[in-house]
């Protein structure tokens, strides 16, 4: 950091050094901010792939289970043997899809693409990685 200059340097050059240092500090801070934001984004939103998978899987299966159980209970109560289970199973399936889309939307919102590479309007470059 400290340049081996003579101590009796002119105030002009000293000012220049300070300005240079200030801009360097600013750019370093900016970099650190970006880094921290990326770290928190990927760190907070379930960073392990397994966690992500289990999250989506449970959301999907739980809805199907709940739908099927409700249908079964309707059948038990009303004596409409297969229909309650069949219909509510499908409703549960739809609810599972809804859950999954919600979770994925939220995950995408939590981890936006890094600002560096411009992916452009069509994401064809994604195939390369």
């Amino acid at each position, binding site marked *: 950091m400290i340049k081996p200059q003579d101590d009796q340097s002119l105030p002009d050059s000293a000012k220049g050094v300070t300005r240079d240092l200030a801009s360097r500090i600013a750019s370093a801070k900016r970099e650190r901010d970006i880094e921290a934001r990326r770290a928190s984004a990927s760190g907070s939103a379930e960073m392990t792939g397994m*966690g992500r998978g289990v*999250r989506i899987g449970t959301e999907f299966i739980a*809805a199907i289970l709940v739908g099927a159980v409700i249908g079964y209970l309707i059948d038990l109560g009303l004596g409409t043997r297969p229909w309650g289970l069949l219909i509510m199973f499908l409703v549960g399936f739809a*609810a*599972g899809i809804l859950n999954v889309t919600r979770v994925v939307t939220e995950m995408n919102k939590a981890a936006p693409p890094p600002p560096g590479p411009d992916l452009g309007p069509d994401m064809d470059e994604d195939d390369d990685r």
Partner: protein
Amino acid sequence: MADPNKVDPIHQFAITDVFSTGEGGFAFTNSALFMVLTVGLIIIYLVGSTAGRRLIPGRAQVVSELLYEFVANMVRGAAGTEGMKFFPFVFSLFMFVLVANMFGMIPFFFTVTSHIIVTFALAMLVFVVVIAYGFYRNGFKFLKLFVPAGVPSYVLPIVVPIEIVSFLSRPISLSVRLFANILAGHITLKVFAGFIVSLGSLGALGFLGASLPLIMTIAITALEFLVAALQAYVFAVLTSMYINDAIHPSH
């Protein structure tokens, strides 16, 4: 466990009585014991570390304050300033799950959260609080949660049951996620550790082979610490998001 050919990865989840008052009476199990230990450790640590109330905190107090800030920011971010009413609730849940998971990582300790009934009870607690507060605060407007805005009325008979099932599935997915992560992690750990024992008993070549599952076990142990913290975080985040639904039912 003495017999190397008989590794039982499920044995660690067995519930045993520490003491009981006869058949069908009150029984204090190892699960209950570790719940008490979990709560005890949380209370002792948090109360003990913040008792000094120093302006310049010591190490223990910094950890407590970090935990507080972390959960407070999470609740504020997910449920707004109004959600801070539920901060004690979310903080208690977070600390309980976190410390219970971490206790589970210590050898020979019982993992409370590896039983679905425990996680389901926690999830039902969240669910009931959300429903009760939602109706208390919004009255019947809370039911707008099931009617998304901008949906034409002729699709509502299909959309509303789907939304209701989606809402009812929350406690299931919340509890199954925590339980499945912890259970799967502990079983994997045990199975790989079992490979070390059975391979190591095969002589010199087996000794060489046993180093592979040993490396794997170390890696999985590290991963499990991550999962333990992460699942506590996920549980708390989802709780505060559901609380946000109770406060603002129209999404």
